[in-house]
């Protein structure tokens, strides 16, 4: 990306480097959302349905972890994946994989906490019916997660928004390597530090536009399918 151009010119010219950055940002954040959903949704559902000692502590903890600072997550993952760290042999520090791991850790609490709330509310409505049908604990989780799917989309979007917007974690574990681990947010940070504020702002606006477009698409899908299914 040459900084003689404004962000809009880069878009209009179909700048390859810009699109590579956008593609990487989306690939990393969407992968993190998918992984975090696989972990966070069952976890949230379990917390909503299961009764065990220490459950309320866990719920409070999970809600608090929604505010986990990205740099802290980034630092923890960095120490874990560093060659001198316990998982150093994997050699994945400063790769997109490391970025996915960090963002997944960052957004699992968000998706799990929002899922727990949603499933708990739905369980109040479904309890008698599912108990009468003698549905197993696992069956309840699956049923409630599926029937709450439209509300859970919001949890996924919240997770995606957090992942796409954060810079602290991906900067530390990705290293902001040009053409390899540079995302929208680290590019904005870099251009800002170069004093190239118009380009930084332009890139920021591109990021906002993309996040907005994804949210609008998801919302539209939700409204449409909710109308279909009721």
């Amino acid at each position, binding site marked *: 990306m040459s900084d003689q151009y404004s962000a809009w010119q880069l878009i209009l010219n179909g700048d390859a480097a810009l699109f590579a950055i956008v593609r990487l940002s989306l690939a990393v954040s969407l*992968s993190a959302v998918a992984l975090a*959903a696989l972990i966070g949704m069952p976890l949230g559902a379990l917390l909503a349905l299961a009764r065990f000692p220490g459950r309320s502590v866990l719920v409070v903890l999970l809600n608090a972890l929604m505010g986990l600072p990205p740099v802290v997550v980034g630092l923890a993952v960095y120490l874990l994946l560093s060659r001198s*760290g316990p998982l150093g042999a994997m050699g994945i520090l400063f790769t997109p994989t490391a970025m996915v791991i960090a963002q997944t850790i960052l957004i699992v609490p968000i998706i799990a906490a929002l899922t727990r709330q949603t499933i708990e509310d739905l369980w109040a409505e479904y309890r008698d019916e599912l108990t009468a049908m003698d549905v197993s604990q696992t069956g309840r989780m699956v049923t409630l997660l599926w029937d709450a799917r439209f509300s859970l989309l919001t949890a996924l979007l919240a997770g995606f928004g957090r992942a796409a917007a954060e810079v602290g974690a991906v900067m530390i574990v990705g290293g902001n390597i040009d053409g390899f681990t540079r995302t929208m947010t680290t590019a904005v940070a870099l251009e800002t*530090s*170069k004093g*190239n504020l118009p380009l930084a702002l332009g890139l920021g606006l591109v990021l906002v536009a993309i996040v907005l477009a994804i949210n609008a698409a998801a919302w539209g899908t939700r409204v449409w399918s909710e109308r279909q299914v009721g």
Partner: protein
Amino acid sequence: MAFRLVSLASAFAFGVLAGLAPASAQDRSIVVASTTSTQDSGLFGHLLPLFKARTNIEVKVIAQGTGQALDTARRGDADVVFVHARSQEEKFVTDGFGVKRFDVMYNDFVLIGPKGDPAGVKGKDIETALRAIQAKAAPFVSRGDKSGTHSAELALWKQAGIDIAAAKGPWYREIGQGMGPALNTAGAMNGYVLADRGTWISFRNRGELEIAVEGDKRLFNQYGVILVNPEKFPSVKKEFGQIFIDWLVSAEGQAAIAAYKIDGQQLFFPNAEKKAS
């Protein structure tokens, strides 16, 4: 249906992970821990494509402060360090983390200040200038991040006869950030700041800032490159790393450094020792 969705999400996540993971078998790439000044000035954007064309080795640059870059290498997370704080670099080699240090190039530091020059330092030598800033308690922005520039700044205060740890007051702001943010901060608070010339020339948000002091020999800023010790970290890609170092100090690499210009100004001056052969 729910099951299908879960499989889809897993397939997507792991597919992407697999796609993103480096193909380690024929991974011709090295990680270079370097400084914000080399990255922000655009030097790497100029050098790396030339190096890649010549050797087909990809260089991944992590741009940090010199101290942080050396720390990254000390943890074994980089193959090569390319930084500018000679004493720290020599300690790095002495401690066994690096193999050997090579001089590559230099640029110089400049003292940047507001056009109004509240401390009246314009055209003075650097020691006089720093003493004037301290005497007038004019705002001064320090990187405060253990970077090469930060080390140089601390050394300059010392040379000026000022114990900055004792003398600092509200006028002395340590921001703990890179060169660009330091310049942005100085611009915002009408303060002085020590910057490397490369970053200054390519800096776009100058506002009321301009060069106050330059050309003083004590502002000389030497860059060195070191291969991380493969005996300490077997994961270090020593062959590719050495090729990169050899290229930087070769006639071809040195010429490429000299050729990098912004607005017609040369930013870095190659000064690698001529090899015998």
